[in-house]
């Protein structure tokens, strides 16, 4: 539980001081935000897309492209955080059949 509280305490992404931004935005951060979506389809899509983008951008060699990809990833993270809140405010009472236990 203390580990959970420690993670929840972070609002800003704190990178170590000597880290140069690599092409891919850190995956665990993206996945953590993806998990917060209340909608099944959006949650799965965000998770999948983040993983695929991470894999693509990890191999970026030249600095400008890598910096651009990192900035884009950061912007996408901000969008995802806001929308996770909006979706949860209007989540329907009934869940998708995909989320219910298999009969």
């Amino acid at each position: 539980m203390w580990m959970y509280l420690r993670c929840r305490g972070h609002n800003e992404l704190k990178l170590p001081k000597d880290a140069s931004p690599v092409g891919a935005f850190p995956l665990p951060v993206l996945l953590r935000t993806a998990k917060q979506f209340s909608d099944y389809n959006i949650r799965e899509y965000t998770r999948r897309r983040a993983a695929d983008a991470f894999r693509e951008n990890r191999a970026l060699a030249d600095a400008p492209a890598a910096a651009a990809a990192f900035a884009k990833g950061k912007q996408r993270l901000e969008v995802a955080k806001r929308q996770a809140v909006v979706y949860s405010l209007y989540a329907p009472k009934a869940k998708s059949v995909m989320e219910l236990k298999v009969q």
Partner: protein
Amino acid sequence: MALSRRLLPLFLRRGAPVPARALSTAAAPAAVASEDDEEAITVKGVRISGRPLYMDMQATTPVDPRVLDAMLPFYLSRYGNPHSRTHLYGWESDAAVEDARARVASLVGADPREIFFTSGATECNNIAVKGVMRFYRERRRHVITTQTEHKCVLDSCRYLQQEGFDVTYLPVRKDGLVDLAQLEDAIRPDTGLVSVMAVNNEIGVIQPLEEIGRICKEKGVPFHTDAAQALGKIPIDVNRMGIGLMSLSGHKIYGPKGVGALYLRRRPRIRVEPQMNGGGQERGIRAGTVPTPLVVGFGAACEIAAQEMDYDHRRVSALQQRLLDGMRAQVDDIVINGSMEHRYPGNLNLSFAYVEGESLLMGLKEVAVSSGSACTSASLEPSYVLRALGVEEDMAHTSIRFGIGRFTTEEEVDRAIELTVHQVKKLRDMSPLYEMAKAGIDLKSIEWSQH
């Protein structure tokens, strides 16, 4: 430590924190019945355990969260009218509209000045068909279209016929494609418009736009295409395809409902008579305040579609293959309506032989799909598109359209296969026609006795 162990499941609970629905002033959905099972939905006498999995992407698509994020500021603080010239609210709205216009234009290879925002593809089709013909009514009296067009195009053509124009409804081949030789023959000196949709909404067939554009350019006839289902899914280039007018829709590319755009070529300039008169907005082509939030959403959706087109296309093709293979492995006598080679993969229209369509749909309540005759909703007659393909009545009645999109998952496809196969097998077990067919009797040779 003991306290934390008890609280741990709470924190590890899947999904979102408890929704703050009490803060929402939106009306509660009328369909929810409060019974002992909190999550069951009872609608039209049927009880479903949860929200169905959505496989009807051709009817409409969910709004992408990135699109919603772009739209919300314009509902909250930046609510100005884009045509107000005297204050910040108007200027920022106008800037947003022009920005969205540029995004839409870049997705189709057009100039932003050639894009006019409307309320949807239906309005665009009306402006294109009726507007062009009425503008050139002195010299051009003939329209060519196909039998598989969307209802709004066919209806507009019928309206023109009442006004005295001639309309040729070209037949299509068995695979849904238009015959180019027939099209070329049908063009007369007084033909004012050729209208062929890019991707059909019912069967998913992609028409040969480049060839049609080339023929129309040679003959000097404007080429209109309804690209509502094609936008953002297949690459469109208005110059390469020789397109003169194009109808675009927002809610088919994960954008908001209620917005669309009409592409109108500038060189050579194609003129239309406006269908909506008023304050001269959108250069007089379509009067009325441009709805900034919707237009911004449409622009964002187009930008996302441009970035994600390859990724989505690969994924959707794989999912379609999975769906098809999964179905074919477990049931036979499945017919695919429309060409497989010239098809947008996210649209799969299948007919199951020896199964009655309505009963199949009634059993598929946990999958949101559409039948072939969805567009002719109230009537029981089979879809005119399938009839134009030459599909027989019984197969047309039993057709189901599966729509796969950006947010469809593999598990959903597997569940759809499972549910459909289960229902088809159940119905076929009950069907005397299936028994006879399996015994080798030719159903067409049966003489049914009259009572």
